[in-house]
């Protein structure tokens, strides 16, 4: 019964969304603001309906209602409650509903929040968002209804794919979704501005924090995905240039480029066409990401999520891109900007270079991802593009970006002189040289790793120096204590120092990634009671233990880890057997230290009582996770900053840039 009501709610939501497509435009042409208000209300009502449908599905999961075939396929009686909740987005239909729910929430926030401001574009923002709603709800009530019921009712479900039963899996998809979907808001504002022909900088300023929000969740979502792959797939890495990883990475790249290049529009009124292009592409790539994950068009580790709605997504992407670009080119006269970068040595040109590098990386990823399709279409050969292709091209571009963070921080807007740069870069370059020498003395020999260390320490030094100087100035002028000067400095320019904290996080992430240059792998078979020496550790295999955990049975090897005869830890790499799937899963054991992760996967337990292990020593991995709290803190800081909701000319006047 509830399931049918849930379905009716979805149809009602579709009707309400169709109203949201039509009413605002009528309101504008007939100059009837009440119609626009009613569409804003409809957007909020839409959330109510979608929320009700989601509650119905969640109820079905929590009460093991296997009359709902989606629940039957993705859950089982013995599934822990946390994963019953996560199973909501574990399959196609549910994740589509989840997507719609999040978009409905964000749309309702937009409709509520901008009742008085942005009056000119908001009707068309609502139209754009409603079109996306119509697409998603149209799929939900036809091809992929998560509340569809079946008869007879089975006693038990098929169970959630055990690979998805990992804490990170409960959080990784929602985070990624939030990121993807939040980019719909800047996109909707961009389209609203185009449709209305109001192409000042208002949409950029209004959506600044939405963009930061989207970026944050896309970043966190991907880090959690890496965490999941690292702990659950058992091959010892966190990133494999799998098509689905690439699909999530591409909108992140263009979104990050957008995040930077809108600052040029905000501060210098430049790059308007470019920003419009970037947000269209980012939104298009967000949908493409879902399309690649869900359609099975490319071979991937995420093949568990395939479905038949790929063609619908593809058509939607095509329509969105064609309409958006047609609109943009119709308004192109209004978008052409008067400013260009004045000289090569200016902050503007570092932003341009930043965008060039991000787009270069995005293009490389795109090419590597679709190349198997190209090769097959053109030559008829099957092939796959592997990690070396991506690493060879992207590593240098990425290191270039890392260095650019440092250069950009110190260089001035509009014009910098060479002597100014030399004076400012003296100390950071010295810091880089010291780190380089120290690393070389400590035995790091790999050129790639040394480059990352040097460039990273240069950038970190710049960031600290820049901050230190600002604090010193405030301390001299304000006379407060050092900590209060530091606090005031940060609070006076939250955007700048939020960015600084994030960039520091980026340095950490690169430091962690550089460990990939010198990781080592060992495959061993251990007999009980016989210690083995591996990578400077001694490993003693005590025997196999079998015990239940959650709804799985674990076969765990008990291992004692020693270094120089001193006991460190007991580790339990295991294979887990789930009742609903005959395939055993690898549960890795990891001992994390600042220097490296000691990573053990149990390959097999053998008849003679021995255990075969795959051991990886992954240097510096933990440092990449340290980027995570810094991203969080930096974004929180940057979100405190309230962009001025003024038109561009006023901003320019205030910054003393008018007429420049």
């Amino acid at each position, binding site marked *: 019964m509830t399931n049918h009501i849930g379905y009716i709610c979805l149809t009602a939501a579709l009707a309400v969304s169709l109203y949201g497509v039509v009413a605002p435009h009528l309101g504008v042409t007939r100059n009837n603001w009440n119609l626009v208000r009613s569409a804003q209300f409809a957007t909020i009502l839409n959330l109510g309906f979608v929320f009700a449908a989601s509650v119905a599905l969640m109820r079905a999961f929590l009460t093991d209602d296997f009359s709902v075939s989606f629940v039957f396929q993705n859950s089982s009686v013995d599934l822990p409650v946390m994963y019953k909740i996560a199973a909501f987005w574990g399959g196609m239909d549910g994740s589509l509903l989840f997507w719609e729910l999040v978009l409905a929430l964000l749309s309702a926030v937009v409709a509520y929040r901008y009742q008085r401001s942005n009056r000119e574009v908001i009707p068309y923002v609502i139209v754009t968002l409603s079109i996306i709603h119509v697409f998603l709800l149209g799929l939900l009530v036809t091809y992929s209804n998560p509340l569809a019921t079946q008869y007879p009712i089975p006693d038990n479900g098929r169970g959630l794919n055990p690979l998805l039963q990992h804490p990170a899996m409960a959080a990784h998809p929602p985070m990624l979704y939030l990121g993807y979907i939040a980019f719909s808001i800047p996109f909707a504002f961009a389209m609203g501005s185009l449709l209305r022909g109001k192409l000042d900088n208002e949409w950029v300023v209004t959506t600044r924090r939405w963009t930061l929000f989207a970026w944050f969740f896309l970043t966190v979502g991907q880090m959690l995905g890496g965490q999941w792959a690292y702990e659950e797939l058992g091959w010892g890495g966190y990133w494999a240039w799998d098509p689905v990883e690439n699909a999530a990475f591409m909108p992140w790249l263009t979104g990050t480029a957008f995040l930077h290049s809108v600052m040029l529009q905000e501060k210098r009124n430049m790059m308007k066409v470019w920003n419009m292009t970037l947000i269209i592409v980012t939104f298009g790539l967000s949908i493409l990401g879902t*399309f690649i994950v869900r*359609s*099975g*068009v*490319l*071979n991937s580790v995420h093949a568990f999520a395939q479905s038949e709605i*790929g*063609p619908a997504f*593809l058509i939607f*992407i*095509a329509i969105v*891109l*064609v309409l958006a*670009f*047609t609109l943009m*080119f*119709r308004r*192109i006269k209004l978008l052409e900007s008067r400013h260009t970068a004045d000289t090569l040595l200016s902050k503007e040109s570092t932003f341009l270079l930043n965008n060039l590098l991000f787009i270069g990386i995005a293009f490389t990823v795109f090419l590597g991802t*679709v190349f*198997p*399709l*190209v090769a*097959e*279409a053109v030559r008829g*050969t*099957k*092939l*796959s593009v592997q990690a070396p292709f991506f690493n060879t091209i992207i590593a240098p571009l990425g290191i270039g970006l890392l260095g650019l963070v440092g250069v950009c921080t110190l260089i001035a807007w509009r014009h910098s002189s060479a002597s100014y740069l030399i004076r400012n870069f003296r100390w950071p370059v010295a810091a880089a040289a010291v780190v380089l020498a120290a690393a070389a003395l400590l035995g790091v020999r790999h050129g790639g790793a040394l480059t990352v260390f040097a460039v990273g320490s240069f950038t970190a030094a710049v960031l600290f120096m820049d901050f230190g100087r600002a604090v010193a100035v405030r301390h001299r002028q304000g006379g407060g204590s050092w900590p209060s000067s530091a606090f005031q400095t940060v609070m006076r320019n939250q955007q700048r120092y939020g960015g600084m904290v994030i960039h520091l996080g980026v340095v950490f992430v690169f430091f962690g990634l550089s460990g990939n240059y010198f990781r080592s792998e060992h*495959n061993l*078979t251990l007999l009980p009671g016989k210690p083995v020496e591996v990578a400077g550790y001694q490993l003693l295999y005590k025997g196999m233990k079998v015990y239940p955990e959650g709804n799985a049975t674990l076969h765990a090897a008990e291992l004692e880890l020693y270094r120089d005869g001193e006991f460190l830890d007991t580790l339990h790499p295991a294979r887990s057997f789930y009742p609903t*799937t*005959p*395939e*055993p899963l690898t549960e890795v054991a990891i001992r994390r230290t600042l220097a490296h992760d000691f990573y053990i996967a149990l390959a*097999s*337990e*053998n*008849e003679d009582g021995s255990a*075969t292990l795959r051991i990886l020593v992954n240097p510096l991995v933990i440092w990449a996770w340290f980027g995570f709290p810094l991203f969080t803190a930096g974004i929180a800081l940057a979100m405190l900053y309230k962009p001025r909701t003024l038109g561009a000319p006023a901003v320019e006047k205030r910054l003393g840039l008018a007429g420049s």
Partner: protein
Amino acid sequence: MIRSWKFWLVLAGIAVVVGLFAYGFTVDPKLVQSPLIGKPAPDFTVTRLGGGETLHLAELRGTPVILNFWASWCVACRDEAALLEKAHRRYGLESGDVRVIGIAIQDRPEAARAFAERYGKTYFLALDGEAGDIALNYGLYGVPETFFIDRDGVIHHKQVGPVTWEGLVTQVNAMAGQQQAKR
């Protein structure tokens, strides 16, 4: 009408990308051609599951071999179990034309035996070594994968994913026909 050439360039770009993905629907991404086709099948020696008999692949020269990789934990392997057994009865026992061999990878002997019993497999089954040497030599992506090895011990065809009856018959006939043509 928009005159800008850039606009048409963008539209063309969209058309190419969308066309490419639309084309992607018509092909199966899993069918990566194995570089082993036309090469001699890597040799191995295995002991029959449950003990006893050993089998040395090189000694089967002269008889085409259907070499199936499977595992008790593999869902698709259940679907094809009956077909492989049928092929074994039709081409192996009755006419003696073909040898069917199943190698279980990453499996435990007791689980593999239970699986074989449940699906009534009577053809030669064995476990891959602890290190998975045979699977590595054949460049396996996963299970099931099936190799068709001709009389000369050369890999004739590789099937990724479960076999179909039509596919089995086609490959067996192709291997037989190829032989007749050579004679």
